[in-house]
């Protein structure tokens, strides 16, 4: 028989799990985020969940799938409130510690499972793609494009590295190792493909198969790396970036640490050659390229880095660069700060444990790239590549598919690979297929939240809760929101500052349109429009009419320029006209976006109408 005290304790524990706590009693919160609409991919708005350090949100991918993303709050805010210029409304839900963990683990698990499944699909696609290449007698290898071909002047850094390798592993090491790799290539058989991809469910965490073509590519990459090392090939100049800027000049500390940095990198590469991991080839190629860049740094007495911009990086044309000094100043300032921080972290790592900190070095590389790019744009009048999402430098190069199986075997392997990819892709589409009403970014988020907080999904037929803008009402009804906050969009945050500092009428007149605005500058992603309408209501139809006229005029001009600009102006004009229509009826979708937003803290949280109301009027 349960004692009364124990029974009451059990009941209290159960209630703590089942019922949301009032804000004053809860130590934990989860935040339901509603992201305001804008033209582009989510003109209906978007939703997300912030729990612990993660923001989870579902996105639609063109393959027809709904994919769960996970980001830090900072990344999310920078993307949506910053670059996409959307205000974020935060509905704060107090929960118990137990419920907090439940929500966090549920979303993390779902994210992990789906990510693994998508990786399996990626892997199957890669396997198929490699087989297609091999049938054409060639394979594209990451890292193979860093170096010049045979016969080039030997690189001093690689000569030194080669000597260290031979001193450590023996004079025949490279020759023997290359021979081993060639034998391995010959022995690979496309018919001994991976096991059949696993089935799909929302709880299964499959492992990506390591099949023939990826094994072949990794082995060929390793062989290529050893060939580069054996002949100490020279680094291509076009794979590096530098600029004649004081910021990139080697200071006294840099000059003192540079030999140590090169030494620890070389040491790590010598150890890498001892690794049994199957894919050591690309790390060796990249490491050698970095070593060669450090040697060039020493010779020039200024930092020379591998270029880490994506081949298709967004570009600001040179003519626009000079017209936006405040943008360039922001980009330059951020890059200088980032470079300084990266320098200090790398130096600290060297002092701490005398090892090559690849993460710290990659940060220095990225920061150096950003600074060099801006300086080249300013000093040499170049286009400016926008420094978003800098990547690990890969520089692919094409190699003949040596020692490959016969065309017949490859063709048979390709048929099987296509079938596997298609079957698995269809299975994932069935599991995660998007539906505008029953399975969209809102319904899935609320569904997961329902299960975590209430134990089961709540039926949504007939309700409008699948609409992002309406979902905040549902969240308040179901979970008891204790507070509503607002993270203003980049432009709205800037406007707020200007209104505090300057004459309001002047600010309104100057910032109301894209021509005189000091906060906004036109970019190629936005449609054609003249007036901003997200921060006005009374004049919205008038501004909307002007925007509509501008859009239609641009479309008319765009018809004429279409053969020359591939319809770019026509599309921008038509889109501009389309998103002007809601404005005629006092509705706003479009807000403009930004190519670059400083990552310095720029957003402020403004408590709106508090308690349990679903947020202040928009």
């Amino acid at each position, binding site marked *: 028989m349960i004692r009364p005290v124990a029974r009451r304790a059990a009941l209290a524990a159960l209630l703590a799990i089942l019922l949301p706590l009032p804000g004053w009693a809860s130590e934990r919160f989860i935040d339901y985020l509603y992201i305001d609409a804008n033209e582009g991919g989510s003109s209906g708005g978007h939703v997300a969940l912030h729990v612990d350090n993660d923001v989870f949100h579902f996105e639609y991918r063109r393959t027809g799938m709904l994919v769960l993303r996970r980001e830090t709050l900072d990344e999310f805010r920078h993307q949506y409130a910053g670059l996409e210029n959307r205000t974020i409304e935060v509905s704060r839900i107090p929960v118990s510690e137990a419920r907090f963990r439940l929500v966090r683990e549920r979303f993390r698990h779902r994210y992990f499972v789906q990510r693994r499944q*998508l990786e399996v699909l990626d892997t199957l696609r890669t396997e198929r793609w490699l087989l297609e290449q091999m049938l054409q007698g060639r394979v594209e290898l990451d890292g193979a494009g860093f170096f010049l071909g045979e016969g080039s002047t030997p690189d001093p850094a690689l000569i030194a590295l080669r000597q260290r390798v031979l001193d450590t592993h023996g004079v025949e090491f490279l020759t023997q190792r290359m021979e081993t790799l060639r034998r391995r290539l010959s022995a690979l058989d496309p018919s001994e493909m991976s096991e059949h991809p696993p089935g799909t469910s929302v709880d299964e965490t499959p492992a990506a198969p*390591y099949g023939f073509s*990826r094994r072949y590519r*990794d082995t060929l990459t390793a062989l290529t790396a050893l060939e580069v090392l054996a002949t100490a090939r020279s680094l291509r100049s076009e794979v590096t970036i530098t600029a004649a800027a004081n910021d990139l000049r080697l200071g006294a500390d840099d000059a003192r640490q540079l030999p140590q940095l090169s030494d620890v990198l070389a040491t790590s590469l010598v150890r890498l050659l001892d690794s049994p991991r*199957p894919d050591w080839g690309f790390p060796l190629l990249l490491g050698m390229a970095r070593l060669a860049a450090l040697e060039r740094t020493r010779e020039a007495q200024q930092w020379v880095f591998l270029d880490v911009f994506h081949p298709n990086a967004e570009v600001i044309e040179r003519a626009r660069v000079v017209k936006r000094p405040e943008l360039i100043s922001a980009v330059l300032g951020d890059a200088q700060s980032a470079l300084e921080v990266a320098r200090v972290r790398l130096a600290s790592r060297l002092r701490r444990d005398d090892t090559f900190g*690849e993460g710290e070095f990659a940060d220095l590389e990225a920061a150096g790239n950003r600074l060099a790019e801006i300086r080249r744009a300013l000093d040499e009048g170049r286009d400016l590549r926008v420094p978003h999402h800098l990547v690990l430098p890969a520089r692919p190069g094409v190699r003949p598919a040596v020692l490959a199986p016969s065309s017949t075997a490859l063709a048979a392997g390709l048929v099987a690979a296509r079938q596997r990819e298609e079957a698995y892709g269809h299975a994932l589409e069935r599991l995660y297929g998007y539906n505008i009403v029953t399975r969209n970014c809102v319904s899935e988020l609320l569904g997961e939240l329902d299960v975590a907080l209430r134990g089961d999904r709540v039926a949504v037929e007939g309700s409008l809760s699948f609409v992002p803008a309406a979902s905040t009402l549902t969240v308040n009804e179901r979970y008891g929101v204790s507070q509503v906050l607002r993270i203003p969009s980049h432009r709205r945050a800037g406007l707020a500052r200007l209104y505090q500092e300057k004459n309001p009428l002047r600010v309104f007149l100057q910032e109301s349109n894209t021509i005189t605005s000091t906060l906004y500058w036109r970019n190629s992603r936005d449609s054609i429009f003249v007036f901003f309408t997200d921060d006005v209501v009374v004049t919205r139809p008038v501004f909307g009419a002007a925007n509509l006229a501008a859009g239609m005029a641009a479309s008319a001009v765009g018809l004429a320029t279409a053969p020359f600009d591939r319809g770019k102006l026509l599309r921008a004009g038509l889109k501009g006209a389309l998103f002007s229509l809601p404005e005629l009826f006092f509705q706003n979708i479009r807000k403009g976006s930004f190519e670059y937003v400083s990552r310095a803290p720029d957003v402020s949280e403004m408590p709106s109408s508090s308690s349990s109301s679903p947020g202040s009027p928009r």
Partner: protein
Amino acid sequence: MRLRGSGSARVMLIPALLVLVGCSFSTSSQSVSTSSASSESSSRSSESSSRSSESSSRSSTGAERQSRYREDVRSYTAAYVRSGARFDAFEKELGELAHSHGLTNWEEDEATYVGIGAGLGDAAVDTAQLETYKAGFSRSDPLKMQAIQRGYDTRQ
């Protein structure tokens, strides 16, 4: 909610409603972010790689990235132990996971081994299994074994 007004007004509102419903398209399909600049990623759809754009953004701070990497290694290790997959396939997976976090020489990074240890903890391996895994993953390197133990202890 009843829609008042003429039939033509209702017809106009339906497309408007559909526009209002839409969710965000994958930003990885709009941006060109991938974890490496290889043309493999760009010749395929830029949104196809789930590894590429998810966690390698250089916009994160170093501490954030390392924490994420460690957490991912933990999840992958736990899944590997539970699945009984081949070791070389797991090492290949670790390589690609590290790549997505901007690391190539993951064997030199302590966070790898701390993450492995935490993953072993999540998988609830016993002491004897732990020692076996420690020796295997670290190739009996004492510092790496210590890192694995530290990671394992965080999950106890």
